[in-house]
């Protein structure tokens, strides 16, 4: 089934690959055999862990190894050299990398900020029980189920200067040609607009879960006390949605941090490199410049950020579960 070119087997990285894959298989098999008939737990989770090991953890370890070499995927491995921490040093001192991280930070702050605000307002809208609520909720929830590619493609269609829907609307009101993707700031806002539109319903869903969990009698009591809207919000509503707001913020930050598809489709990082987020940058370094080892080093820095954020996220998830 698998066509394995034997010439490749002779190369150093690939020997390492086959040895570690073999070792991983032996370990996985041994643990299953060991657990057979004695414990159910290990046996049940073994297939899942094995698959994740082969398809996720093993590749990660491999690229960790690669990050210490000067490997390039489009060249022969003959000149492969161990260069220690040079890749990391290069990446951390590279002006381009810092610039891309800055761009990513701006996009993350803008898009997550807009999502939190819009999502929150939408949640206030749907907090009440009104006729036709389920149908309208369905309409609002649709964007986040679409594919990034579809959203990217069609927003590009809406931004198109001549026949784009949004451009035509703007032209109608201002009389000027609308070319959002022409300027750095415009392109950035165009990306943020599309992404925020897509994911605000996510925030809404979380906030809504908090809002509907507020016991009704608290509101009734506040009504009797003639508490102001603001006071009612800060003393009754906010404590119930606080934890969910935080979770939404963290979750969206993790997701926005790895933003790739929308940028790739709407602006492709342009104009210039003004909207090139770190995800797009890594893609370029790895698959257009083929500086494989350098991109692996870069990836480990991303990995670290995501692991920290995920840890934080799960910490707050657990805390919320314990409170409930």
């Amino acid at each position, binding site marked *: 089934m698998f066509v394995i070119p034997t010439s490749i087997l002779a190369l150093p990285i690939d020997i390492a690959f086959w040895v570690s894959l073999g070792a991983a298989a032996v370990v996985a098999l041994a643990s299953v055999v060991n657990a057979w008939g004695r414990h159910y737990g290990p046996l049940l989770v073994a297939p899942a862990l094995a698959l994740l090991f082969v398809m996720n953890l093993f590749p990660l370890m491999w690229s960790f190894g690669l990050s210490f070499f000067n490997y390039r995927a489009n060249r022969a491995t003959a000149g492969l050299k161990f260069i220690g921490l040079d890749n990391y040093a290069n990446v951390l001192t590279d002006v381009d990398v810092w610039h891309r991280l800055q761009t990513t930070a701006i996009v993350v702050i803008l898009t997550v900020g807009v999502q939190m605000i819009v999502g929150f307002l939408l949640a206030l809208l749907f907090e009440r029980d009104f006729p036709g609520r389920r149908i309208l909720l369905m309409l609002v929830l649709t964007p986040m189920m679409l594919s990034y590619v*579809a959203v990217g493609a069609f927003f590009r269609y809406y931004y198109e200067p001549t026949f784009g829907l949004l451009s035509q609307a703007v032209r109608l009101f201002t009389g000027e040609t609308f070319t959002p993707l022409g300027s750095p700031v415009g392109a950035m806002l165009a990306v943020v607009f599309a992404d925020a539109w897509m994911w605000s319903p996510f925030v809404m869903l979380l906030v809504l879960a908090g809002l509907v969990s507020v016991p009704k009698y608290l509101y009734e009591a506040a*009504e009797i006390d003639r508490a102001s809207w603001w006071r009612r919000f800060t003393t009754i509503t906010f404590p119930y949605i606080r934890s969910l707001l935080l979770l939404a913020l963290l979750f969206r930050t993790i997701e926005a941090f790895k933003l790739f598809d929308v940028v790739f489709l709407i602006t492709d990082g342009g104009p210039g490199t003004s909207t090139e987020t770190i995800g797009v940058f890594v893609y370029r370094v790895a698959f257009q410049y083929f500086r494989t080892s350098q991109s692996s080093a870069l990836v480990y820095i991303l990995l670290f950020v995501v692991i920290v954020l995920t840890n934080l996220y799960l910490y707050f998830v657990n805390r919320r579960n314990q409170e409930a």
Partner: protein
Amino acid sequence: MRGGRRGIRQAGWGWTGFAGLVSLIYFLPVLWIILTAFKTHNDALAIPPKVLPLPWIESSFSFAPTLENFVGVFSRAYTSASTAIDTGFDLFFFNSVLVAGVSVLLALAIGTLAAYGFSRYPLRGNDTYLFIILTTRMLPPIVVIIPIFLMFRVTGLSGSYAGIILLYTAFNLPFTVWMMKSFFDELSRDVEDAARLDGSSERRIFLKICLPQVKAGLAATAVFGLILTWNEFLFALLLTGVETRTVPVAMAQTIGGDIGVRWGLLAAIETLFLVPIFLVTFLLQHHLLRGVTFGTIKR
């Protein structure tokens, strides 16, 4: 006094009108995709935009709806204005269905077992395993893709169905495990303990007692998995060949091309995809929160 005595959360038709307006504005980009799906190529690029699918009203805003885009999705020779264009979208559509379907089923089988294991027979370091599993899902795909790309090149899996299905199974697994674990955690243990006292085997308890109770959960997990897999772009971009290309990649490649983009065709594909989405958001509304947070938040 808003809401009156019946509690603040009730609202009438006035609120429906307001919410309806906001929802419609929010839904407009999607609505436009649906409209574009029924337009000819020229109508899709018209200035001013064609809004009304009502050809009998004489105005520059109305257009005659056509089904040619939907035909184009399912047939290879896509004829538009008497020129036949080979879109290949029937193949990409088939690829997407096959790859997403098989990998979601595989992930569901492996993941449900694992979720049951994590839920009922906690290992030493159970939480660590679960954390690592979730982390693999939270990672930017670009992190994993570099070594996987090299790995697939070495093993010759690149561009094959087996390769992308294997990868997508792994991609779906963390989500499936977390999601199904959250469903298993919610079940009452009393019935299981009673069955255990009566001498039921562990396998029987799993198959006859636990599994039937999480049927809705299985369905929700499968559907969310299908949506996630169907939408996946980066893995498919780098690891599928000409013959195994999936819909998102094909869509992205049409956009990048120099020739005029067939917006109607892309819109038709997306419109077809909207049907399951609507069903999900409507029928599985109670599991939506759990679905979009990968099973980490239940309520």
